């Protein structure tokens, strides 16, 4: 099992002197799902966004495929980014584009502006988009506009877009927080299938502890910008949850 992502002493402060992330060190490998849990505002989204540099880290290293993401810039950074798929809480599809165009957005990293403008994508990529749509059960929706879909359908398009990138790492920022319980489970099952099929690690921010226990092989608990728990779901006792979230009235 090779190490695919190594986070070393990562810190981030949006305002100087008020760090959101304090000295985070984590290693990800294999094809496991890791759930990051913790109270709102503790820096889970910031951590995920530091990995693909949508947010600039203040200090530390993020070694992905043997290279430090923090030191990359320009074309090299974009090439590395294109190898990391990302799924968002509010799907973040381009609303006015069709489902097919949203899927092919995943191929933009290797497509020139000229070809992107004329929608002249590789035939192989278009073929793969059709296959992906079939896997997520949206074959009939290829030409539908993204804003005409339901929440669960949109998130499946969001995951498909990430899959189209041929990612070697998948990040998901609260992918089920805007969905109903049944759809949430379906989306988690889909993410688990992607992880297994592509044999890549998946890192998911979550609020739903039970869902995290059910799908994740590893749980990272964060509180106040620190990692306070890192281990198997079985070790997630009430005491640990109290350390993560504080208080205890909510546990009953």
């Amino acid at each position, binding site marked *: 099992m090779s190490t695919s992502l190594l986070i070393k002493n990562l810190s981030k402060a949006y305002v100087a002197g008020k760090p959101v992330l304090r000295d985070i060190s984590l290693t990800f490998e294999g094809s496991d799902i890791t759930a990051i849990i913790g109270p709102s505002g503790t820096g889970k989204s910031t951590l995920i966004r530091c990995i693909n540099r949508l947010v600039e880290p203040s200090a530390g290293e993020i070694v992905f495929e043997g290279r430090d993401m923090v030191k990359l810039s320009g074309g090299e950074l974009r090439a590395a*980014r294109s190898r990391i798929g990302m799924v968002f809480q509010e799907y*973040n599809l*381009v*609303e006015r*584009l069709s489902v097919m165009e949203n899927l092919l*957005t995943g191929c933009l*990293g290797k497509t020139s*502006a000229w070809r992107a403008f004329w929608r002249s994508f590789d035939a192989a990529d278009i073929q793969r988009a059709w296959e992906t749509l079939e896997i997520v059960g949206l074959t009939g929706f290829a030409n539908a506009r993204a804003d005409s879909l339901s929440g669960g359908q949109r998130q499946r398009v969001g995951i498909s877009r990430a899959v189209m990138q041929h990612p070697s790492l998948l990040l998901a920022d609260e992918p089920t927080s805007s969905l109903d319980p049944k759809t949430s489970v379906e989306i988690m099952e889909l993410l688990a299938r992607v992880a297994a099929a592509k044999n890549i690690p998946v890192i998911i921010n979550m609020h739903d502890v039970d869902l995290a226990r059910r799908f994740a092989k590893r749980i990272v608990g964060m509180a106040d910008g620190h990692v306070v728990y890192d281990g198997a779901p079985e070790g997630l006792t009430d005491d640990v949850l109290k350390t993560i979230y504080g208080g205890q009235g909510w546990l009953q």
Partner: protein
Amino acid sequence: MSAATSSVMPAHIKPFQASPLARFGWLVLFAYLLWAMSSLDFNWARFVFGIDNGAKFISRMFPPNFERWDLLVKGLTESLQMAFIASFLGVIISLPLGLLGARNMMPAVITWPVRVIVIACRSFHPVIVAIICVKAVGFGALAGIIALTVASVGFVGKLFTEAIEEISMKQIEAVRATGASFMNVVIFGVVPQVMFRFIGFSAYETDANLRNSTMVGIVGAGGIGGTLFAAFQRFDYDFVLAIVLSIIGLIMIGELMQIWVKKVFRQ
């Protein structure tokens, strides 16, 4: 009940009292209006004298004279062509300027100079720009086209920038996360969000240019305005009415075009 109510009403505070400062303000405004009217010879006697002249003028306008229709059609065609060319050029120039001026896409060192250019284009009325252009490149449609293009950039450039600044950055973030280059982010993230609004703005600007193109001719920058001005100077008031009616027709066609464009691209 009334006893309880009256007991809490303080006698020394009068409700609904106007502030003395506001009353003084009204007084000053009224005095200024009176002074302005008297100094500009704006009074009833002058109006009666004027209306008499106006009645003669209007009676000479009827019936409208379409005998010189070839001149009329030539002027109208030129105005129409000027409006469309200027709108096209204005939109083409405004596309990059609109993007470069958007604060959510560009750093301040780029947005500020671009915004200054757009503001400069908007500062003057098209007729003033037309006078400058006539001096610069001579009489005719070219001066009018340049003047209307400058006005279009000033107006559409600002609207484009504002539309881009209102887009959803979440969609941009997602496109960036796929490793897309800046141009690809623009093509797949920005353009889909603003395209229908841009089309609406362009149709609106074409309509506005249609109106303005009938006017820049008065200062010699081509179009029906020149014909109108010449007719006035020759006291051909019946031909003047014919021109005015034709302009109204042209503007109504512009209005219909705008309604049609909005209907087609209403999404």
